[in-house]
């Protein structure tokens, strides 16, 4: 994977140079936010994922070994942070729904915490039909253009697992279209 910043900038950032770290941020924040937002499907939560990711990068940068691609490393931190955040949100949603069911209040679980501006985004609508692992795979493949090998190193799974997740996700998309996406939403 082609690296996003020069070795010199990276070394400066590793030594704690804030200006160099800002260059690292400018070069990578776009894809970090895209992955985070597509996985968690909530603008504010995705912004928090971005903050967490860059603070982690800043803390761990000294220990970064240049044998692996810096971009792969950033994607890995991002995917883990976004998947964990998604799972936490899902648990909270479940608790809300249980609570609301107990209170006899009708609530659409899919809409809790969802950002209105992006609610009509078809990409997020269909991504929401997947589990977080499949979602991360599809986002890295379709929106970030990573190869199977790259996805495999980012998610730390075998290539066949990447294939299986993509296959299941695509079968799901096709099923939804057969039944009509609108009915499912």
């Amino acid at each position, binding site marked *: 994977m082609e690296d996003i910043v020069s070795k010199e900038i990276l070394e400066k950032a590793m030594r704690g140079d804030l200006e160099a770290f800002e260059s690292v941020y400018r070069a990578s924040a776009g894809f970090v936010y895209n992955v985070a937002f597509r996985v968690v499907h909530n603008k504010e939560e*995705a912004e928090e994922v971005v903050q967490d990711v860059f603070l982690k990068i800043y803390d761990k940068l000294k220990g970064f070994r240049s044998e692996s691609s810096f971009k792969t490393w950033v994607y890995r931190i991002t995917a883990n942070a976004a998947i964990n955040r998604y799972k936490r949100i899902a648990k909270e949603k479940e608790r809300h729904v249980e609570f609301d069911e107990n209170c006899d209040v009708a609530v659409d679980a899919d809409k809790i915490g969802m950002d209105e501006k992006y609610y009509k985004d078809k*990409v997020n609508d269909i991504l929401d039909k997947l589990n977080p692992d499949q979602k991360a795979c599809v986002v890295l493949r*379709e929106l970030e253009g990573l190869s199977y090998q790259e996805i495999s190193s980012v998610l730390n799974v075998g290539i066949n697992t990447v*294939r299986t997740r*993509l296959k299941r996700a695509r079968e799901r998309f096709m099923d*939804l279209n057969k039944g009509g996406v609108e009915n499912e939403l």
Partner: protein
Amino acid sequence: MNCDRIKEIILTDYIDGEMKEEQKKFIDRHLSGCADCRNFYETVKTDAKDVFQGAERPELPEAVWQKVKTAIIEKQIKSENPVRRFWESLSDLLVIPRPVVAVATVAVFFCIVLALAGIKITRTGDLSVNMQHMVELFDYSAGGAADDTEENQSGFGTSIEEYFL
């Protein structure tokens, strides 16, 4: 290769261009002669690939960098504190490799288990000693009472009794 297998490949490696040229040509040849697989390919392309074409990339607000920057500066200020730096360097010296920590944890766990088991055995021992003591006490009491009875029974030998008898 049957159509089911071809469809599986279409769903992943073929549609994603992850195949070697020769393998791709093989699938291409199959598609040109198989209407069912060709339809399947078109459906995959429409439902699972094209839907992502031209997807907007959300714009990240500038405020996020300001928050990250502030948090980093706060961290730097904290790490510049000499007392904190001293403790951090001390904790760096005391860094123990993870496997050692794991082995030590297991060892401590076993020691605790053994110690608890020891206490239990000792307690059981104390209990058995106590129980023995109680049994002896009961035996003694019972024995005493029996002695009294015997004494009563053997009381027929007193002088006044002997006189009436």
